[in-house]
């Protein structure tokens, strides 16, 4: 009665390699920024303003991706900006996931009045335009890293709550849940040991997606100058500054934009790839 069904292993896809590789590179850059950054990201030198990247005429040696209008090194600022982006992605993403997934799981599995309360909150929440909501929150809380993280959690927990609720409802209707009850497992125990493992791939996919979203939200808030102090380099801040001089020095805008794009894309692709890996049926 042996067959090969259990033996098939899927190779780690190109998608996982590329997205994981880019993010690993970014983590390395964030950790080692002081060691590998060629210049001080805050150092201004008006004589070196708007230097083009290394392959163009008039490039200044040592400033690989050029300089902005104040003569600050674009590459060094991107490297230092990765720190803030990653901290926001990890902390805000994880907290959002914890809050949203917990509420979604409870609503979807217990149904009844917990579901009614949580679902109504989600409905009301979703009626607010998210960016305006964030700007309002930061205005109240004051700018700073903590405020950004709180704003992201407060805005985005509904994304998790809605999806996980639906998923938990689907799983809750399965007979293996009834069978756990027949075996005498408690409601809470069933939620943790039967439902949660089946919802986990979705949670992981959403979590990485949310990390990407967190990076974007941080960039948006920097763009409207509501992020951290203007001194510390952020990708959103760089994009905002680069926008004003895009015709004279496009590289100030384009390089942080590409970095942001690749990072957000990598997060979502990592999630999709991990979701497949997590599933014993697809594995």
């Amino acid at each position, binding site marked *: *009665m042996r067959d090969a*069904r*259990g033996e098939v292993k899927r190779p780690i896809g190109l998608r996982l390699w590329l997205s994981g590789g880019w993010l690993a590179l970014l983590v390395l850059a964030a950790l080692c920024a002081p060691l590998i950054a060629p210049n001080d990201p805050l150092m201004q030198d008006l004589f070196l303003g708007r230097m083009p990247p290394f392959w163009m005429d008039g490039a200044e040696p040592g400033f690989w991706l050029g300089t902005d209008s104040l003569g600050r090194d674009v590459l060094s600022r991107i490297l230092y900006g990765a720190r803030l982006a990653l901290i926001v992605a990890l902390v805000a993403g994880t907290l959002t996931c914890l809050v949203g997934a917990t509420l979604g799981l409870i609503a979807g599995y217990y149904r009844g009045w917990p579901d009614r309360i949580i679902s109504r909150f989600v409905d009301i929440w979703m009626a607010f335009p998210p960016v305006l909501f964030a700007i309002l929150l930061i205005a109240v809380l004051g700018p700073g890293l903590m405020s950004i993280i709180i704003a992201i959690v407060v805005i985005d927990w509904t994304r998790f709550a809605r999806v996980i609720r639906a998923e938990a409802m689907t799983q809750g209707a*399965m*007979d*293996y849940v*009834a*069978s*756990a*009850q*027949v*075996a*005498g*497992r*408690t*409601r809470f125990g069933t939620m943790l040991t*039967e439902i949660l*493992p*089946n919802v986990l791939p979705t949670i992981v996919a959403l979590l990485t997606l949310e990390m990407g979203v967190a990076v974007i939200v941080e960039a948006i808030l920097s763009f409207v100058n509501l992020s951290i102090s203007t001194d510390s380099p952020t990708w959103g801040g760089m994009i905002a500054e680069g926008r004003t001089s895009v015709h004279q020095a496009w590289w100030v805008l384009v390089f942080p934009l590409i970095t942001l794009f690749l990072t957000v894309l990598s997060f979502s692709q990592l999630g999709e790839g991990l979701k497949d890996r997590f599933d*014993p*049926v697809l594995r």
Partner: protein
Amino acid sequence: MMYEVRDLRLSFPDMAHKPLIGAAPRLEVLKGLSFDVPKGAVLGIVGGSGSGKSTLGRAMLRLLEPTGGTISFDGTDITHMGEDQLRGMRKRFQMIFQDPMSSLNPRRRVGGIIAGPLRLQGLDGLTGRVDEALDMVGLPRGFAQRYPHELSGGQRQRVGIARAIALRPDFILADEIVSGLDVSSQAQVLNLLGELVRDLGLTLAFISHDLSVIRRLCDRVLVLHHGEVVEEGATAALFDAPQAAYTRELLGAIPLPDPHQTWG
């Protein structure tokens, strides 16, 4: 008596007809059922789709709480027993589910699926008990390391049976357990169940819409229609001389090998 069921009623709120303001009307699924399941009996519960047979099964295992009447299991009234009290009794009545794909947690290995209820009921020597259960349902012990999706439908249903008998229950409810299987797997699973019932001295309630299956396995039959018992009796007598019109209708729907032959 294993089960004594008296005037059992069960209704759900009918959300499809809920008015904008106010409570939803109740949808009566079980409308006052009374019957006994003697110890050691193999009772077939038959009825069409929507007759309430699955709801009855789930009420007997207290996956649902009845809205009226009483259910007593081996002399104990379990009609409104709380989940904490029920937990201690649950190893005595077990269930095999209809769809073995949905009733086996896809994230667990077969060994973990069978061991789960044993661990919950505080039994030890889990590996030995899992091996023994796999032996009894005729699966290789190595299957403990497999995931449900790696098994065929018949094999999965054997795992479902192994999970139920591993606890050594007094009573097992089998809810349409062969309706998702092909004909040869059906026969194998039914033979296996018949043997286990005999060897372990189990009391079995077997829910099915298929009278030919019931005839083969059960010694008593309960015919349900629209949430009411229309007929109850020994299998042979019921097949030979059906009393209720609905039973005759059901019997008439079984294809016979010879078109000139009739039942009874």
